[in-house]
């Protein structure tokens, strides 16, 4: 009896799993029939980001330096009021084609200063930024918590396309059909703004890019809202991975070598096995 029990214990345990799963299945199916899952507001109104083509896309893509510089200007003049870029250092801007002196000047003139603690006086003060500093943290007192933007295009599905759609998506209002189902969306809560690309649909960030020419471009590009949004999205692809181009270049070298090695190893395999049926 005991040995029979030991022999069959795996069936008892496994059988219990199957039985409990079938009970759970019965419960889930009954639940779905009795109360079919209701459509959520997110499901009715959320929009998938629109496609965005950038110079850095695809395996052969390269950053468009002029666009990155324009995007940096948008970040500097608009985004940086609320959003930090704390994983990036001023010195990294040299990658965008700025000279040493320009980077020094950008750091020195940066609005938010670096906090310094005076050990003797026991008080906090501040100093100008230098190229070796990271972009300073930004402390935002209002509603919402503006995320750091350094990795934002990696930290959201669809990356740059999401950023671009979100920035230009404020004028898209919910359809009458959707509003009929979810009347609470007819009036956006105070301090919030409807944006169909945002996961929660109502976002605390007010429309940041509102009029053409909001940022002064010096390279002759027309600073339309759409253009500024594209430029800053491209810039944020760079901040998320400044080594992107190096990575792909190295990739081609590695793949080239490996494909060559594949021919060699295939040849070795054929010659070693020649005459041995297998």
């Amino acid at each position, binding site marked *: 009896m005991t040995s029979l029990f030991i022999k069959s214990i795996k069936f008892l345990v496994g059988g219990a799993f199957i039985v409990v799963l079938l009970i759970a299945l019965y419960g889930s199916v009954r639940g779905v029939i009795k109360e079919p899952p209701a459509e959520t507001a997110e499901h009715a109104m959320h929009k998938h980001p629109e496609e965005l083509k950038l110079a850095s896309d695809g395996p052969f893509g390269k950053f468009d330096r002029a666009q990155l510089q324009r995007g940096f200007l948008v970040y500097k003049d608009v985004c940086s009021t609320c959003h930090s870029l704390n994983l990036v250092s001023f010195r990294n801007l040299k990658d965008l084609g700025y000279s040493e002196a320009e980077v020094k000047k950008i750091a020195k003139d940066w609005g938010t200063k670096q906090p310094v603690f005076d050990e003797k006086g026991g008080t906090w003060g501040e100093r100008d930024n230098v190229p070796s500093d990271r972009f300073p943290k930004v402390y935002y007192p209002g509603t919402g918590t503006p995320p750091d933007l350094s990795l934002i295009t990696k930290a959201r599905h669809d990356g740059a396309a999401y950023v671009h759609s979100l920035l230009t998506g404020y004028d898209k209002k919910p359809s009458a059909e959707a509003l009929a189902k979810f009347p609470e969306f007819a009036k956006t809560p105070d301090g919030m703004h409807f944006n169909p690309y945002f996961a929660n649909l109502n976002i605390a960030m007010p429309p940041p890019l509102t009029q053409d020419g909001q940022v002064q471009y010096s390279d002759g590009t027309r600073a339309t809202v759409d253009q500024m949004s594209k430029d800053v999205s491209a810039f944020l692809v760079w901040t998320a991975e400044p*080594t992107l181009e190096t990575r792909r270049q190295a990739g081609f070298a590695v793949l080239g070598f490996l494909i060559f090695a594949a021919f060699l190893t295939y040849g070795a395999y054929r010659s070693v096995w020649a005459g041995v049926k297998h």
Partner: protein
Amino acid sequence: MSFPWAKHYEPKNPVMQWVDSRLPLPRFVYNAVGAGYPVPRNLNYWWNFGVLAGVALVCQLITGIVLAMHFHSSAAGAFESVNVGIMRDVNAGWFLRFAHANGASMFFVVIYIHMFRGLYYGSYKAPREMVWLLGVVIFLLLMATAFMGYVLPWGQMSFWGAQVITGFFSAIPVAGDWIRVWLLGGYAPDDAALNRFFSLHYLLPFVIAGAVILHIWALHIPGSSNPTGVEVKGEQDTVPFHPYYTAKDGLGVVVFLILFSVLIFFAPDYLGHPDNYIPANPLSTPAHIVPEWYFWPFYAILRAFTADFILPAKLWGVLAMFGSILLLFFLPWLDKSPVRSGAYRPMYKVAFWVLVFDVLVLGYCGGSPAEPLYVIVSQIAAAYYFAHFLIIVPIISSIETPKPLPGSITEAVLAKTGA
């Protein structure tokens, strides 16, 4: 061990003679993965994956050891040391990090193929049960290592993954919460948890390496299985591992590295979750907490248990999730068919492919949000998973009429090549 016709190590170089007579390490290597190990001549490419798993382990060890030199194991500094230090400032740090993160995925791809190969060709059957059992141990160790590694960058999914996985232990009746706090070293994942995960994440790969040595040792007693499942009958059935299989595995390794490189250099974030680029925030729960893809089938089994029946649903889920792997330990005794290879087992072959499909369905559901439809599908697929091993395989092994087996490996090879 080994076959009587195995070649003997006869070093010509006086240095090797000197070493070998004092410490027979060269002889050991020669007999393990050199010309001294006779292997069936008919192994197909599915037999490459054992060596590939070894290569994946070595890649993970090398990149991991270097990454550890640059990693700050603290809740305040981990995210930054990875996303600034390693990704931006360390020379080729981005390569190390992407190679390590994608290396884990490649490791699991290889391991899953290796396991399914074992299932199809009945490699778990006598006299190779111990090889299979050690393989399941390695798989469990690998899962633990991968989970703890994913926690280290301290992003949102790291933190909430740690929260969910250590939460399993709170399902244990009575002492559960106490055990969870003891394991984490606190009430939520923080410095204490991160540091012990780092310590264990560094330790376990070496334990895996030890288990791999036992796995290979156990394999060398009966020798490798083969696609016909017919045992080696004589010298004509085998070729020496070196140069025959070193050449074939060499090609396999290069193809493996090509796929691995495509991931590292051209789609390094494809298999990851965007939320892990957000620093861990104990106050903000992600909308959908999902583990890495290689845990999805087990995550689906965990979430399929939604009914409190005698035990709480959560405890059922945790038991079944571990049970789904522990079940594999019993497989050599559940499948009683004397025929090893699925190629000669018409019913088992069908059941095998249904199982592959079932596990893929479980994986798809595990990666999807816990919506009713996915839960229902996971419940059916999870029940089928247990039924496959506990009902279908034992029944098939008693009612199936296998196809006639070839007389020997050589006979099968000659029949196939038409000589």
